[in-house]
């Protein structure tokens, strides 16, 4: 089905597959890692994966909306990271630990 051409001819599908793979990677991190900061980072990874597909679509369909979305996603990711890290810091101050299980408790 796929020949060498598939490797030399890069198209939307490649980017989407890469994006999915990165997304799954990030998701695995979110689901499986214990360290809350790593989970946050995995989320960033997922967002990046999504960004790739946005840009890819934008490129292959000649529409700039995809890039606008990426712009927004980046902003939100930055915001999320800031707040997430702030929460981490306060949790860490209390428990000296960033295990995700410590985030179950709503009251310290």
């Amino acid at each position: 089905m796929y020949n060498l051409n598939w490797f030399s001819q890069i198209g939307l599908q490649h980017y989407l597959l890469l994006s999915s793979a990165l997304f799954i990677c990030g998701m695995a991190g979110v689901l499986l890692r214990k360290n809350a900061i790593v989970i946050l980072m995995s989320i960033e990874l997922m967002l990046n994966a999504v960004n790739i597909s946005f840009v890819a679509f934008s490129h292959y369909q000649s529409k700039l909306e995809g890039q606008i979305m990426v712009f927004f996603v980046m902003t939100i990711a930055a915001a999320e990271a800031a707040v997430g890290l702030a929460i981490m810091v306060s949790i860490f101050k209390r428990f000296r630990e960033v295990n995700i299980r410590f985030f179950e408790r709503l009251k310290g």
Partner: protein
Amino acid sequence: MISDAILFWILAFLSLSAGLTVVMIANPIYSALALVMTMVSVAGLFVTLGAYFLAGVQLIVYAGAVMVLFVMVLMLFDLKNEVYAFTQGLLTNVVKLGCLGLLAGLLAGTLVLSSYQSQEIQDKVVAAADQTKALGQLLFTQYLFGFEVLGILLLIVAIGAVALSRSRGGTHHV
């Protein structure tokens, strides 16, 4: 064209391997550094897709700011090598992995079987400089509302982050 392909494969390899490292490696600092690597390669991918401005922004925002924060925080915490990188619980982990596998399979299947096989690369790729200008115009006309909302969001986040992480006493008084 072949150079594009080579660049893509290199960047894809870099980003995927770095991404896997993020997830797999036990030391969170290495995770973070691997993530930086991923970010940079994703920026490269953006370049291959002609989104130069976004690539720059990706570098500035992700690599330059967000990840620095992560690394700083991790260094501050100074977490020793963790014995268990992954959560405990066999059953839940099996369920999670099952989910992941299913999702991966579904995505891959969808993509491979989808109708994108006949790829028409469109030549009307806008010149990069104009593209940036067009992006700006779109952002400040059609998506102005979203932009403003994001601005407000950032303000809130700034205040919120300060409020969350402030410590009693503070470092200095003016």
